[in-house]
């Protein structure tokens, strides 16, 4: 159980803490941040290579398998990373219960909407429907 090594002794004694997930968010934020390093560099390269190109050329390049796969990975990884990040900000600064509930829910809705819209667009570009 390698993952248990990053659990605090208190978590092992008392279970998973107030959020019932222990250090999962912390750890997943680290995983997605490591993945974000090459994916962000790839995004910058892709965007620069598409600057000033016609719509037809952009569609062709964005829809090509390698670029589409990189963009999908970027979107999925970024969505999860930003979901954890904004949740952390909300938990730190929003203390009124109902407002906290609403903003946490809005965070989830926003992230899902962005991720699905972007992923759908990439797949449409790729499959050319």
């Amino acid at each position: 159980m390698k993952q248990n090594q990053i659990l605090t002794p208190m978590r092992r004694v008392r279970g998973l803490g107030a959020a019932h997930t222990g250090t999962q968010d912390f750890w997943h934020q680290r995983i997605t941040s490591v993945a974000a390093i090459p994916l962000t560099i790839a995004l910058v390269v892709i965007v620069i290579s598409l600057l000033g190109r016609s719509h037809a050329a952009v569609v062709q390049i964005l829809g090509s398998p390698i670029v589409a796969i990189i963009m999908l990975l970027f979107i999925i990884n970024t969505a999860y990373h930003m979901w954890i990040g904004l949740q952390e900000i909300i938990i730190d600064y929003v203390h009124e219960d109902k407002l906290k509930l609403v903003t946490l829910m809005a965070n989830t809705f926003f992230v899902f909407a962005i991720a699905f819209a972007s992923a759908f667009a990439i797949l449409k570009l790729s499959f050319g429907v």
Partner: protein
Amino acid sequence: MAELEAGTTTAAQRPRPLSPHLQVYKFMLSYLMSGLHRISGFVLYFGVLLIAWWLVAAAAGPNAYGNFEWFMGSLIGRLVLLGYTWALLHHLLGGIRHLIWDLGYGFEPAEREFLALATIVGSISLTLIVWVVGYLAMGGPR
């Protein structure tokens, strides 16, 4: 009974321990970089709308993509993209700095100051480089 009374009152009346917040820390570059990491992350959260707009517009067709290009080509669009570029690269370098700390390195005072300085100097330099390369790729400013 004194012990019992003391036990019942302390739990309810003793102030709960609070985490130290912004005001107790001395202002330093590492403090500013810590704040900027969160602020740049917050900005990027909404900046991803640009990526989604870009992809959906490309998928929707030439007209939608033309609207996107028109906005990004405008002065406001370019400023937004410049800000997005910097926030992205700053958060990237700030994240690498945090990963270095997670591995247990870079906690000495001089190392902390160096990492903080490297983050801000690096993010501004990289932003300039990316924009110069971007304009060169387009065949010069237009």
